[in-house]
């Protein structure tokens, strides 16, 4: 167990960033997101949640794949994938950590997504326990312990100190390399964890009933009339998708540069009306169908393909960010099971 005074965190950041790239919650304008640590940035480590989730680091919103050069009828393909240097992702909360497992199930399944994999392998994750969980948090429903997230290094803020415990070899190596840390005592951390766990138990959504969401109910859930009302106010924007730590739909697009064509992939959203549109038909014609797809995917389709693992981590970002206050909690309460009433 290591520790550092809260007020000296900047020293820690500087030391880490001196050796490898460091990504952590940084506030720019009025919003906090994971960004690269550089001199002068405003680190916002206490912020419970970044707007965009940490998936951005492995599956960025936009990522070059290849380039094409054409001359006459000929095409030349140039691989544009970059090999990432080792980096530290600092301040990941339990929910986001859990989302990595879910993304892994998609991107590391055969055929493996090499772009994603390379970044997953390059990272050392420093998690941070949630001292002040919010009412929109319901990670516990999905088996996340926000007081005890198990990254390569587990960090916990206790009073005016931050404690670090290595949980993997990678984590140990990172901590061993840092000279600004001093040895710490585990007792205080245990106490804090317990306190956090109690706070979590008191949150309003921690007892959501998910019992109805299972593979065999697929068609039954799909045909539930409640979808109409649930989705009524949906604008069809991509806010929920883009702030979601587990959404992984993407598009592959070409961009004509002055020199050739860049092919990149970027986040897409199943909430967009163009998502499934083909030349003549669109299998999901209305917003209700698209809304249903997103939640059915997270709560039913994904678990039925992934050993019952849900495609949601209960981070509550969609609860906070939906422009019209629609969210997965409302869906679960309506369709999840009897105990939600």
């Amino acid at each position, binding site marked *: 167990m290591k520790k550092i005074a809260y007020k000296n965190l900047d020293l820690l950041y500087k030391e880490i960033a001196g050796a490898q790239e460091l990504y952590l919650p940084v506030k720019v304008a009025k919003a906090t997101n994971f960004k690269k640590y550089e001199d002068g940035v405003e680190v916002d480590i206490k912020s419970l949640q970044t*707007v965009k989730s940490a998936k951005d680091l492995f599956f960025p*919103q936009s990522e070059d794949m290849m380039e094409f050069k054409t001359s006459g009828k000929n095409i030349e393909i140039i691989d544009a994938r970059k090999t990432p240097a080792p980096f530290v992702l600092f301040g990941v909360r339990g929910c986001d950590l859990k989302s990595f497992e879910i993304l892994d199930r998609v991107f590391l399944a055969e055929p493996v997504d090499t772009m994603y994999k390379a970044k997953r392998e390059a990272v050392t994750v420093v998690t941070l326990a949630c001292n002040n969980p919010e009412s929109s948090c319901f990670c516990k429903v999905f088996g996340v312990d926000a007081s005890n997230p198990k990254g390569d290094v587990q960090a916990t803020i206790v009073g005016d100190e931050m404690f670090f415990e290595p949980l993997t070899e990678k984590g140990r190596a990172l901590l061993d390399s840092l000279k600004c840390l001093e040895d710490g005592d585990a007792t205080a951390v245990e106490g804090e964890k317990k306190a956090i766990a109690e706070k979590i138990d008191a949150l309003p959504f921690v007892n959501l009933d998910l019992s109805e969401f299972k593979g065999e109910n697929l068609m039954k859930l799909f045909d539930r009339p409640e979808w109409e009302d649930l989705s*009524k106010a949906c604008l*069809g924007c*991509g806010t929920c998708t883009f702030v979601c730590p587990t959404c992984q739909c993407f598009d592959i*697009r070409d961009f004509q540069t002055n020199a050739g064509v860049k092919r990149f992939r970027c986040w897409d959203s199943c909430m967009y009306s163009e998502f499934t549109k083909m030349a003549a038909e669109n299998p999901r014609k209305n917003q209700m169908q698209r809304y249903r797809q997103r939640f059915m995917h997270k709560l039913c389709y994904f678990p039925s393909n992934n050993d019952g693992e849900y495609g949601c981590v209960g981070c509550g970002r969609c609860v906070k960010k939906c422009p019209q206050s629609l969210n997965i909690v409302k869906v679960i309460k309506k369709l999840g099971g009897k105990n939600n009433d």
Partner: protein
Amino acid sequence: MQRIETAMIEKAKALLSSGEVTRVLGWKKGELGYDVEPCVFKSEESLKDFCYNVFCGANLSKYLVEESKKEGKILVFLKPCDSYSFNQLIKEHRINKENVYTVGVECQGKVDPYKLKENGIEMVDSAVETVDTVTVKGKEFKKEEIILGKCLTCTKKPLSYDDIISFNEKREPVLDRFETVKKLEAMTADERYAFWKDQLSNCIRCNACRNVCPACTCTKCVFDNDNSGIASKANSDSFEEKLFHIIRAFHVAGRCTDCGECSRVCPQHIPLHLLNRKFISDIDRLYGEYQAGEDTDSKGPLTNYTTGDVDPSDVFGGNN
């Protein structure tokens, strides 16, 4: 202020039961108090979830583009600012007015849940509102501490309605709506560039601003249309965030009623309304005051001209 909600429910029930309307467009209670959602109520019974309180910030007028196409009349409750959007949509032939029964409702400013949170209040069971204050969880706030940015500068008066429910005189705005625009104009170009670079770099292109905007009702947006030449899905380069927001603001210039929804819904809190307000302020300054949505028949400033209009070289205000 509970009184107005009761009056609205009564109105809705009366119109539903008389058969004058078949549906009611209003707001529905949420799970955490502040997460009120727009909703179409189809029966008197369903109105039990109806609410009208300090969290009903959402502008309902855009839903009417689709709803007014449907069979049967729909009752809609419009706050003063929503009614401007409604008028503008009527002007642009996007709403079938025949199918809409409008009831104007009083608004004394709606609460911004983020500001509540900054003040340490997270979950809300009930909020008690007076014209100037809101009391949440026993804590009394002045309106200007916690209402939405768009409400701080609101001068909108209720426009023509089929009916109106209002018990109090409207609050005066707390701020001049062009104050921040002026502040930005007074900066140097470098400072302005730095300001917008920071703000727009947060944009995740979720399209919430566009999809919520009552002026953005295109069948297919140019940014979704691969044939438009500027289609894009993500800001793959910082240029694209600028392109998106400049073009979007330009497309709604002269049509934007300044309802402020774009800024309210931005997950990254980008003050997008400052772009629209820049256009509004320039229009007011250069071509005479114009409030989109104030009427349903005037020509907008960008589809109009006078022979003596200012030359583009002379438009710049503020600092270089």
